[in-house]
């Protein structure tokens, strides 16, 4: 028999909660309402008490604030110990985390510490407790059943809308925790130097592939992305050719994204790439080959030469957006 209650584990990054935290709250709230169970969260951060208020104001009944100066950087063992201590306190049945680097590692450790089943990249949680998640590179969806009283799940980014600030206010409870001596420690952080939007949290992505033909091909991609306020993605072929750095890579070996709008330029749609973006809300394909998989799966397909089309689209976007906001 599954335990009662849902616990969100929220980890701050550079002193702030990543937007995916608010997606977890939406998922948790829906589940709590459907199951008529309480929704709690633990915020693990060097600024937990300040950040907990933001979580409590978005529909979480009870928020534990685990604050310690050493929580300024994420380490797997210490953060897992904190989360496990909170989870054990009130014997929660479902534990929700983000599918980012920290959330995934934490979920893995928690599953062992709590002897709990784990499902990652979950796109849907059924009221009966089963979780849906992609596997075989996104070719298949599996329905996962938990055999343990506690289940741990990481939720795919953008799978749920972000919870807004509401009128109700949850209770904030300080959760003092002394991490003691740890076998791993956070030493330094080097921020991403380029001033670009992070792929994982982007609502709009303009992505380029082999069809661009050269590193110069990415120039109109970046220009359109800047005009739209979008992040820049790339296929493995473009990254392997050295046209853009690996951090732009979308797909199985790169990032998994789920934006509202994904514009694929010169990307044929290899299964490796589709695995990372096929759950985008709207896919626009721009390609010379009308029969390639990306053009077939796209919601909107434009056949043509990107060199000709992209500057025109960018100009049109600037013109229309400019006039709309004026």
């Amino acid at each position, binding site marked *: 028999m599954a335990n009662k209650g849902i616990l969100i584990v929220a980890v701050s990054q550079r002193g702030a909660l990543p937007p995916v935290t608010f997606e977890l709250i939406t998922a948790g709230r829906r589940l709590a309402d459907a199951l008529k169970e309480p929704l709690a969260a633990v915020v693990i951060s060097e600024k937990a008490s300040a950040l907990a208020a933001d979580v409590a104001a978005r529909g979480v009944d009870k928020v534990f604030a685990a604050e310690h100066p050493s929580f300024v950087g994420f380490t797997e063992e210490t953060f897992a110990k904190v989360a496990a201590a909170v989870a054990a306190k009130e014997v929660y049945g479902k534990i929700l985390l983000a599918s980012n680097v920290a959330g995934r*590692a934490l979920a893995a450790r928690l599953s062992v510490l709590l002897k709990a089943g*784990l499902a990652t990249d979950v796109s849907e949680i059924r009221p009966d407790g089963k979780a849906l998640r992609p596997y075989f590179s996104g070719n298949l969806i*599996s329905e996962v059943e938990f*055999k343990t009283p506690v289940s741990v799940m990481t939720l795919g980014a953008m799978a749920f809308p972000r919870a807004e600030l509401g009128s109700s206010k949850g209770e904030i409870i300080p959760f003092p925790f002394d991490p003691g001596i740890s076998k*791993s420690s*956070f030493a330094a952080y080097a*921020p991403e130097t380029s001033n670009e939007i992070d792929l994982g949290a982007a609502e709009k992505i303009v992505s380029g592939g082999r069809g661009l033909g050269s590193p110069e091909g990415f120039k109109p991609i970046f220009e359109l992305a800047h005009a739209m306020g979008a992040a820049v993605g790339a296929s493995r072929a473009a990254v392997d050719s050295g046209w853009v750095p690996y951090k732009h890579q979308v797909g199985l070996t790169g990032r998994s994204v789920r934006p509202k709008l994904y514009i694929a330029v010169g990307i044929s749609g290899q299964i490796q790439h589709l695995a990372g973006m096929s759950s985008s809300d709207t896919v626009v394909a721009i390609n010379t080959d009308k029969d390639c998989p990306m053009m077939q799966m796209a919601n909107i397909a434009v056949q043509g030469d990107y060199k000709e089309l992209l500057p025109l689209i960018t100009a*049109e976007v600037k013109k229309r957006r400019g006039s709309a906001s004026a």
Partner: protein
Amino acid sequence: MGLHIVVCVKSTPASTNVAIDPATGQPKTTGVQSELNPYDEFAVEEAVRLKERSTGSTATAVTVGSDVCLREAIARGVDDAVLIAGAEFEGGDGFATSLALSAAIKKLHAEKPVHLVLFGKNTSDTGTGVVGAQTAAWLDWPSATAVMKIDAIDEISATVSRAMEDGTDQIKLTLPACVSTVKELNIPRLPSLKGKMAAKKATFPKWGATELGLPPAQVGVAGSATVVVKATTPAPRAAGVKIEGATAAEKARKLVDILIERKLI
């Protein structure tokens, strides 16, 4: 003295384009050729590089399942291998698999102290990407995930760079430790002819649950915390619209019209 590096690998289907068996509702992987999980190539390469860097070091590959990936790892320069196999391990999820791996690592550690255990980013089939951190948790060893560079390592500690969403973290680990990697780590070499010959002839120990000291209830399906009750193919997307136009300018205008109409920009 040198380092003892263990690299955990998996044999995965060479193609992820698998069908569902209507009888079982599970992916049909029998008869599909298997290979070293592509993401494990980077972990294997790093194990070999670390071994080459300091004399007297060894690299050992460990897997649960089939020996295909072990031979591939040997072909790429790994010294030794351990195969965890037996009917009892079948159908194990990450929870059960990581326990079996941790038991094997403990056994290796007792024979020759292990300094670092490397893992690939995730597997191409079930793709959970959590087995490294789970194995570390069973061992109660420190761990780091999404490691893109091993900056420094000796027999006592390692400093690693972790690729976060917003930049790079540097983490210090007291060894032994487990590290899950990403592909930025290195550019794997192809197996040499000599390596391929060695891989063909290689023999290695095969450990079952008994050798690992694990009760049957803790391995395979019985020891799993989750079960995949059903596999389905994703719903096909609704047919899309094609933007037609006599000129590129007309197409561009029509596209932006639709994007604005749908409130996408």
